[in-house]
């Protein structure tokens, strides 16, 4: 048996590999967006695809997000499986009309006759020192729109597996890429890409007893760091990585919180009207009698995403998570 060298791969490379493998496996898969061809995308996720599959399958579009997603709708209606790239989170907004008025409801309005297998890749979130409009976390808007799946990987392996699953899905998937993790690395066997699981399953990244941190995407590494720091205080934290916001894996989350009796939801996007509110409500509904304290949220402030020089004060960090965990203790004892 020959052993294949296990090499480190970045999340951006894993995403590119998923696109490549999906295109090789199915000629209906088309990649399109601004600068995805010759340049290979501003984050180089689509690097090499135009060369390998031709410009008809990896297409530099005119600069128009509504047009990109709108034409993808027509392409999907004709049997293709478009994967569109929105260059940055806030630049997806011109495409919202198409997303909300058509992409999300085509299956429903055609009584299931016309599903739209479109994957919409959106780099999102802050922490990279981006100028205005380059750091938004828009997941709450997508979650609030019935008919869309909303998925976000936090590890290199999940980036691959979830993107393959998203492209294979017969429903539209908003695939949120935490851009500050694009360069995070993990070992990777190029001969054997990671497993592809159906979307919709959360995973326990660390088991613990004191409390459950419920998180996803860019906040996962922060939560894992908090686990280490919490150990010094004698807290043994469990971390659930949601991976998929829609559908939501109630089972994994509920099982964990029933065991620990305490939960903190951690995410970067705003608190009020944010994903954490929905998650806390679900947890409370299912775990009320198991809870030793209210479910808390550690999330972004309710402000427009701040300029880079101030973003560190906005982003939920380890200290803020530990403060919340400490409050859970206090709530439980008083």
């Amino acid at each position: 048996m020959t052993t294949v060298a296990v090499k480190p791969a970045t999340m951006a490379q894993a995403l590119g590999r998923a696109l490549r493998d999906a295109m090789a496996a199915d000629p209906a898969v088309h990649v399109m967006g601004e600068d995805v061809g010759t340049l290979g995308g501003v984050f180089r996720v689509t690097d090499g695809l135009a060369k390998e599959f031709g410009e008809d399958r990896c297409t530099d579009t005119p600069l128009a997000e509504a047009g990109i997603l709108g034409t993808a709708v027509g392409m999907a209606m004709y049997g293709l499986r478009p994967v569109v790239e929105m260059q940055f989170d806030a630049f997806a907004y011109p495409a919202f009309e198409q997303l909300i008025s058509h992409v999300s409801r085509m299956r429903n309005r055609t009584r299931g006759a016309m599903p739209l297998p479109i994957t919409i890749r959106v780099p999102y979130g802050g922490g990279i020192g981006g100028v205005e409009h380059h750091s938004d976390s828009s997941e709450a808007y997508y979650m609030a729109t019935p008919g869309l799946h909303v998925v976000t990987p936090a590890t290199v392996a999940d980036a691959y597996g979830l993107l393959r699953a998203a492209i294979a899905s017969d429903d539209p998937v908003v695939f949120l890429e935490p851009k500050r993790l694009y360069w995070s690395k993990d070992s990777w066997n190029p001969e054997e890409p990671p497993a592809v699981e159906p979307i919709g399953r959360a995973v326990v990244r660390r088991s613990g007893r004191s409390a459950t941190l419920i998180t996803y995407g860019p906040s996962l590494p922060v939560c894992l760091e908090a686990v280490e720091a919490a150990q010094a205080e004698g807290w043994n934290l469990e971390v659930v990585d949601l991976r998929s916001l829609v559908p939501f894996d109630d089972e994994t989350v509920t099982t964990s919180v029933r065991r620990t009796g305490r939960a903190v939801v951690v995410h970067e996007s705003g608190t009020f009207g944010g994903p954490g509110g929905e998650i806390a409500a679900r947890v409370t509904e299912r775990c009320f009698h198991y809870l030793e304290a209210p479910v808390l949220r550690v999330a972004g402030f309710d402000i427009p995403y701040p300029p880079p020089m101030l973003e560190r004060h906005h982003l939920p960090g380890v200290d803020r998570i530990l403060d919340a965990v400490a409050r859970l203790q206090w709530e439980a004892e008083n």
Partner: protein
Amino acid sequence: MTVMEQRGAYRPTPPPAWQPRTDPAPLLPDEVPYRVLGTDAAAEADPELLRRLYGELVRGRRYNTQATALTKQGRLAVYPSSTGQEACQVAAALVLEERDWLFPSYRDTLAAVARGLDPVQALGLLRGDWHSGYDPRERRIAPLCTPLATQLPHAVGLAHAARLQGDDVVALALVGDGGTSEGDFHEALNFAAVWQAPVVFLVQNNGFAISVPLAKQTAAPSLAHKAVGYGMPGRLVDGNDAAAVHQVLGEAVAHARAGGGPTLVEAVTYRMEAHTNADDDKRYRADSEVEAWRAHDPIALLEHTLTERGLLDEAGIQAAREDAEAMAADLRERMNQDPALDPMDLFGHVYDQPTTQLLEQEAQLRAELAAQERHHESEGAPR
């Protein structure tokens, strides 16, 4: 009676004669970009204006090199240089009266500075201490706009409002070639033409939208041609010829001010640097193409005309350079100071009256910062 029953009785009447609402011929752009420098028209151009344009071009170029240097020192997060496009920027600023408005895109720092915005303030967005941060009313410059083409309808609305109030104010809106593909561009042009709003759109066609060349952006004969379909004149101008851009924009502004409605001006120019310092232009264009455009440098073009006409000598050139150098030195010095930042500013200006939730979050951050302070003090660590 159903429609089907009605059909039998239906007798088509011939349609009334169709006539175009507007004769498209006068709206169509020239076949080649309009030029002044290097033509007979150069001899007629106002010496005072040419000298002013020259001074601003030299300052603009120096500003671009200084800001690029600041990105290398980590003082700026990113800088989209407009080297090669200075003529468009400067003409856009100088053609406007004080009461007029400028709607720049994110690459148009020079236009904003030439219109009088403090050079440091013009970099606020890119430095990252505040988004925009200046009062648009002070110099009548809308915030430098990152989402492409979204400022164009604003320009139309403002110009329309000014006209409704009886003010002879003109709005000049800047957009790139890539931006002309956005829906907002088309909606803005249509509103402007239907309302006959006193607005001028200047497209700086610099060849690329990041990596995408114009040929993949549009199939139109030129971007100026797009105007005709909306019912406004399109003008094509050499974007490296400051005198020509100034003249064409001047005519468009005068036309708008006189109640003639909007104009779309396409300035054909070239982006000499990469999209930003984060971009690798080797991936999508050949050095030879960049070199070919270097021979058509906007500063050299104007310098040549000025010296030929005896309007500029070595001393004049030297003076312009010294003036630009002084501006750069001042910019460098002020940008090398850390901006005074207060994290509590995060909560300022979200609403007129902060929500109770925001007040809670403000208190939370204040407590966190105080705790950090105590921690540092007890550890004696430098802050």
